């Protein structure tokens, strides 16, 4: 092989540098494009009725997604009530006691579960709850969301607790504190902002989920009176409205998209700021 001349080598290097800058630019262009389109189209749908009125049939003025906002919030809260404590304690097990075979298995399962498609979780809860009770329900939707949260929270909790220096644990134990008190009062306090970030991350992740709700909570044009029936929610509403041929429904789907996107991105940016503050300390 003949050595290439210095000129070709440096020319090629320049080309690669140029291409990689373009690639980075492409990523940013798509991000801006998506955010811009959703914001521009969505903002037209946002009026008073959008936030306070239930949906209307196509062609009728004054429809909103208030019932879906309420349903989504209710399911998110219930999902957090189930998923956050179990996830945190699973993480505690991994960080504090998980240095054995069982811990390894749980750790492996949590990593694998984070990559399981959310639609599969929806199918699972459908088979578990919807088939056995005979109807779709908000409870099933919340359970599906909780299952998705569980491994995310367990993983971040383990990571955050691992950051707490062992000297802190040892000092607590040396002062005569029992192990559980040491974990809950000392280790949790030291890892507090990290734990909160992990929880918010999981909430942000599931608040945009659609696939697991399709077969569990389904959707409904009515106010959610109880979670024991099909429950209106924003994401499935977006799906149904976007696929409908009616312009005004599609418009509302854009509005709901903007709402979801704004909420998720705000949560994400907020968490990043919190994490950065923590690192500075």
């Amino acid at each position, binding site marked *: 092989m003949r050595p290439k001349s210095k000129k070709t080598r440096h020319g090629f290097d320049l080309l690669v540098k140029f291409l990689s800058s373009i690639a980075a630019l492409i*990523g940013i262009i798509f991000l801006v*494009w*998506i955010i811009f389109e959703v914001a521009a189209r969505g903002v037209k749908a946002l009026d008073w009725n959008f936030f306070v009125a239930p949906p209307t049939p196509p062609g009728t003025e004054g429809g909103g997604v208030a019932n879906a906002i309420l349903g989504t919030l209710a399911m998110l809260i219930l999902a957090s009530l189930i998923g956050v404590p179990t996830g945190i304690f699973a993480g505690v097990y991994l960080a504090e*006691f998980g240095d054995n075979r069982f811990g390894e298995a749980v750790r492996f399962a949590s990593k694998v579960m984070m*990559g399981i498609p959310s639609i599969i979780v929806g199918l699972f809860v459908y088979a578990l709850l919807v088939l056995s009770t005979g109807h779709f329900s908000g409870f099933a939707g919340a359970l599906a969301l909780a299952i998705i949260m569980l491994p995310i929270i367990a993983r971040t909790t383990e990571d955050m607790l691992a950051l707490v220096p062992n000297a802190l644990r040892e000092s607590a134990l040396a002062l005569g504190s029992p192990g559980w008190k040491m974990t809950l009062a000392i280790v949790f306090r030291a890892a507090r902002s990290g734990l909160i970030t992990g929880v918010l991350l999981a909430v942000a992740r599931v608040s*945009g989920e659609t696939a697991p709700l399709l077969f569990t909570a389904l959707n409904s044009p009515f106010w959610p009176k109880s979670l024991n029936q099909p429950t209106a929610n924003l994401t499935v509403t977006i799906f149904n409205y976007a696929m409908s041929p009616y312009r005004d429904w599609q418009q509302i789907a854009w509005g709901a998209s903007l709402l979801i996107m704004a909420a998720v991105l705000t949560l994400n940016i907020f968490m990043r700021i919190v994490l950065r503050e923590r690192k500075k300390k």
Partner: protein
Amino acid sequence: MTRLAGKKKRHKSADRLFQYFSALCGLLLLLVMAGILFELIRNSQPSISRFGLKFLVSTSWDPVTGQFGALTSIYGTLVSTFIAMSISLPLSLVIALFLVELAPPILAKFVGYAIELLAAIPSIIYGMWGLFVFAPFMSQHVQPGLNKTLGFLPLFQGPPMGIGMLTAGIILSLMVLPFTSAVMRDVFQMVPAVVKESAFGLGATTWEVTRKVTLRYGLQGLLGASFLGLGRAVGETMAVTFVIGNDHRISASLFAAGNSIASTLANEFTEASDKLYLSALIELGLVLFLITLIIQALAQLWLKRIEKGAGKR
């Protein structure tokens, strides 16, 4: 003395309770995973006993006559994933190169942040944007051009409808990009500065250092990254459902509509009225679950092996 002993005993049992309770929560994770497998197998029994292994190789999907085969969905999943990976892997490689080697720190931080935000956008938003904004863009600008220049290939023939396999693959590549480029960036940063500096010192250009030092050094990590991205792309549901066209057909052209396992589920599940139809759909879900399970398990084992190796070095 006895009081102290009693207190100690109480503490001990409370400790044990605490440990058991957290172990129980950990066990829950294992139970859920086993439960998913069990429920999917149990509920797809009618379809499994009716079609057997033929389910995996049959292309017919007819709810009216009760004939179900998964091949079109599996094919669509594989093709859309392949398109996504073949775009996002090289793209994330050069993006990682940009972030680590080229950009000034402030710019790298900003760009890296923007790329990560792509992962935060929910799937359904990609779907809305893909259907109403990107698909028309594809049909007006990209597909006619591809047809004119590469139209001699059967891949790029047919009417430019916008929706279809190619559009789904491109949107998937955007969604996978943050995951692959994050891992690649970590891999690039893992290379000891001394090694790179030695190569620079010998007069190598940035690209030569990347190709001959960094990539060699981090090859295993890159493989793990692609596996993780693959796992994401295979199971993506909503964005694909919006733009893939949902047609049970295998076409040579990437412009044609198709379907994937996840999109078939999202589209047809609530319409499935009879038992056989429902169990066929659940068996599709089982196939998808097994595919992602294998990919994820391989990726995790692989990454773990590398970590161990890195510890030894």
